[in-house]
């Protein structure tokens, strides 16, 4: 059992080891949906929700797998759980906010292959977090994802108004921005310890 305090886990996941900028998890939506703040925020919230649900499920499933000594099925079980959680979010969004559902488009089902979520489930298992620790870790990771994607969307909205040389129009400049954001997040290293 890990002995880290809850506040340490939280700060670590949000800032010092931000899932997107320090661990490179969940880059596809980070680069794909960060064009506008209006779509970035719901995407972040959906990811946060899926993270919380799958973190709880992953914890329970791991208990079962360990009890039966079939840990080699862990990966398959986790990915199935995540796929179902994503389906749940998709149905909820379609029912309550159809407009938002349409604007997120293909990126909603792609949360399934968002490595941030599978990564979260795997990391909490490796670190042997307790139930409460896992939940706080998931919350921190989700908020960290929202923070990163919002910062990126804000920067890219500003960027649209400026003139750039023609070769930098495309993904290259987004990656450069990501690099700079990542550099600035390195300043948080050691925080919360």
């Amino acid at each position, binding site marked *: 059992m890990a002995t880290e305090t809850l506040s340490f886990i939280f700060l670590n996941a949000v800032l010092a080891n931000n899932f997107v900028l320090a661990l490179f998890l969940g880059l596809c939506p980070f680069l794909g949906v960060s064009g506008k703040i209006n779509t970035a925020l719901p995407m972040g919230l959906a990811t946060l929700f899926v993270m919380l649900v799958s973190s709880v499920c992953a914890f329970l499933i791991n208990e079962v797998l360990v009890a039966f000594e079939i840990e080699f099925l862990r990966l398959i079980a986790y*990915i199935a759980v995540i796929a179902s959680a994503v389906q749940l979010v998709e149905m909820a969004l379609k029912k309550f906010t159809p407009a938002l559902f349409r604007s997120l488009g293909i990126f909603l089902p792609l949360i399934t292959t968002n490595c941030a979520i599978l990564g979260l489930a795997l*990391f909490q298992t490796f670190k042997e977090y307790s139930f409460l620790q896992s939940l706080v870790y998931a919350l921190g990771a989700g908020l960290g994802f929202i923070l990163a994607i919002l910062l990126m969307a804000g920067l890219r909205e500003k960027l649209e108004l400026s003139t750039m040389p023609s070769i930098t129009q495309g993904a290259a400049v987004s990656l*450069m921005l990501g690099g700079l954001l990542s550099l600035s997040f390195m300043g948080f290293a050691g925080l919360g310890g």
Partner: protein
Amino acid sequence: MAKKQDNTITWDTFSEGLWRENPVFVMLLGMCPVLAVTNSAINALAMGIATLFVLLASGTLISLLRNSIPKQVRIATYIVIIATFVTIVDYTIQAISLDLYNALGAFIQLIVANCMILGRAEAYSSRNPPLKSIINATGMGLGFTLALLCLGVVREILGAGSLFGIDLFGPRFEPWVVMVLPAGGFLVLGAWLLLFEWLKQRKSETELNPAAES
């Protein structure tokens, strides 16, 4: 699915993944392992080979089963097939080299969530006969490995002054630590993309007005 398929295998089947539709540089798929494990050339190569194997094996199996998988549950089926092969790779690497396993960490298991593999399964293997998808998957996998190596080599040379663990510049070289840190991954990939875009634009300009170049 169209009844009549183009079953001819051409050089293009193999080479489109290498260059024209390179998964990393052109389609920007599977970015997470690309940036996370390329801090040294050997890690990049191992990751590339592992991904190549999963891509090849899952592509073959999905292509063989393509007519018996119901359309509604196809994504779930693909994911389970991919997860099975990733588990095999995971245990194999652990058995071969524990050092490498520790260096790559959770990213071997995260091959499951590599959108390139699922994307190829959905877009190619489920529509084409086995031989053709094997060839295409090899091309794609090699393209992916090549891209990983491009990043890994640059980052290792600049960040550690070595290549595949062999010292290049002697003791006086001051390593650019930023290159092996996360930020370096973003910057190097961004620089590669800029280079390709520059080459592409120069090429199209030359084609448009060949007289201006002379």
